[in-house]
């Protein structure tokens, strides 16, 4: 039976670059394949940074939404 998929919310609102991407990297260290990390941020650079991070680490950006007060990026962990 497969392990339970973890859905972790990482709240990086108010943190400046490279804070959010670092918080994501810290959560990634604890994640396993199949897990989902949801990153909340307010730094506008996070959109491009999340895509770059995912391309680099070979993980997937499942969604990237600009909401009213925050940017929400959902990342699916494909590689450890």
């Amino acid at each position, binding site marked *: 039976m497969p392990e339970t998929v973890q859905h972790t919310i990482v709240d990086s609102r108010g943190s400046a670059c490279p804070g959010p991407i670092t918080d994501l990297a*810290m959560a990634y260290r604890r994640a396993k394949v199949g897990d989902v990390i949801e990153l909340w941020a307010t730094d506008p650079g996070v959109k491009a940074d999340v895509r770059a991070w995912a391309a680099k*680490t070979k993980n997937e950006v499942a969604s990237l939404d600009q909401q009213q007060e925050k940017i929400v990026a959902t990342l699916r962990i494909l590689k450890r």
Partner: protein
Amino acid sequence: MTTTVHPAASAAQNQAAATTDKLSIIMFSGTADKFIPLGVLAQAAAAMGTEVNIFVTGFALGAFTKHPKELPFPVEFSAMAPIVAQGMAKAHVASWDTMLRTAHELGAKIYACSMMSGVMGLEKDDFNDLVEDVVGAASFLQTAENGQLLFI
């Protein structure tokens, strides 16, 4: 046996060999402004999973001792320094040493230059816990080989 080398394929192979996932930074400057990009780039690269190596030399060495002096702002930026400091605090930008500590936690390695350590009368024990070792320029260049290299 005849071997045909395709020039384009060969160039692509060379390029691949020249881009190891590694960032090496030679930190030479000793003013506060230059330590900001050091912290940002080291932390960002480490977060991206890139191997990070920092070689501390010249005027930067003192900032890595156990009892560092406050870093000066260069004279030409002194009028701007308070605005930058205020803006950074407001934007919650971490201090350079906090960023470097985070980078270190993510695997970044920091080395002190042996020649400059000798000049300043510093030994391994005089440096803070971030400093991995005291090494020579040749050994650092070997560590940096085939990666990206920055001089700050």
